[in-house]
């Protein structure tokens, strides 16, 4: 099992085990972090927005058009913004660090 390091909106950081082959959103949701993930991961709601530690950005697959278009309209958008439902967790991502973005 690979590790995912999560910082909450309150600034608390913790480590959880991430199952391979599921999305980072699913890991966050199963571990009760505050991502509403209303649409269940179909890239429709942007309620699973996270900031990815800069170091990891280029290790992730690029954003697809839908993800990019949704993200860019968020007030809290930054260069390292991602929709966590669009990141599949793999062994290569062992140690990935994400910060949950503010609720909009």
């Amino acid at each position: 099992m690979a590790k995912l390091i999560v910082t909450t909106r309150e600034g608390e950081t913790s480590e959880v085990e991430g199952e391979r082959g599921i999305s980072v959103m699913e890991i966050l949701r199963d571990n009760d972090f505050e991502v509403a993930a209303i649409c269940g991961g179909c890239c429709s709601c942007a309620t699973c927005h996270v900031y990815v530690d800069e170091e990891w950005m280029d290790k992730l697959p690029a954003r697809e058009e839908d993800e990019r278009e949704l993200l860019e309209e968020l007030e809290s958008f930054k260069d390292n913004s991602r929709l966590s439902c669009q990141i599949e967790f793999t062994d290569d991502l062992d140690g990935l660090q994400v910060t949950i973005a503010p609720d909009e």
Partner: protein
Amino acid sequence: MTDTFIIVGAGQAGGQAAATLRSKGFEGRIVLIGEENYVPYERPPLSKAFLAGELPVEKTFLKKPDFYDNKNIELRLGRRVVAIDRQARTVNLDNGESIGYDKLLLATGSRVRKLTVPGAELSGIHYLRDIADVEGIRAAMKPGARLAIVGAGYIGLEVAAVARKLGHEVTVVEALDRVMARVVAPQVSAFYEKVHREAGVDLRLGTGLTAFEGDGRFEQLRLTDGSAVPGDLAVVGIGIVPNVELAQEIGLKVDNGIVVDEYGRTEDPDIFAAGDVTNHPNAILGRNIRLESVQNAMSQAMAAALAMLGHLEAYNEVPWFWSDQYDLKLQIAGLWEPDDEIVVRGDMESRKFSVVYLRDGAIAAINVINNMRDFLPAKKLIEAKSKVDPARLADPEVPLKEFLTT
């Protein structure tokens, strides 16, 4: 003594409410009772990827099955609540068991509306609401099977799209003169009709159904124009009815749904409701509504769970919804009305555009087709109700968020 909170209905709203109660620190007993044999799951994939066989069933689950144990949420699956006693504050299950509650959440959702035409009892006629229904449809969709779909709402059309992709012959019959008539303007219906016809769907609009015909088993639809549509299976998607009976029996106010306030409270201080089953106020729209959407189920469940804990946070959001058909991702925000002025942003032919609905000079609703960039700003604009210049709005190069600042 710790408090017991009972949730009736282990669907999207019930599952979310249980999770919210725990994440907000409730330490009492939570009993989540659901008639289906599955942990709470998401319904949208049922007429999309799950029907197409592209998604294992576990992927529809709202939370992993061990979540409930870990959070000490007592799941009673395959169990139906048959009665509630408000005086004694108990619920009765179909196995004779009775459980006492301090607070009760009704999240009973809705069930499909059934047809009563002659032949409605034949085998081979399917409806689509739960996992078991999809399993039945998939088993009947053998290679080469022909589908006769009744109803061109989003469920019928999503099934048609999946079936065409899998190579089945598909006929869709709709009594109204256009598809998705309840939720989109005629221009958008026309666009989707063209898409389905180009994909090979035989679309019969303005044609009602008079009977299902067959010898014990469904063989064909008989239509109001006298013609017959042969098929190996029929799939009916003609809407839903909210499961209000339990609430009705105990005298709670029911009017096209269980009537609740913006916190999900009924008039009984110990009983709350959330999801498809509620009729609730929406301050943005300025009226009461009953919605059939995931956004509503999830957000209202969170508000109701908070209210059960004594924290009042009003649920008041722009309603939104989505539907996937072929390569088209449709997102709808706000509720369309027939008198709205229509502004199209972008070229419909390009399959990436938005249709904006103006009411009193402000954006009241939007349909976004493969054009995600308009979606979030549109939701904010609907909420703000600020006036927009239709000419500028019609220019797809002008980002919608620019209207927010003016």
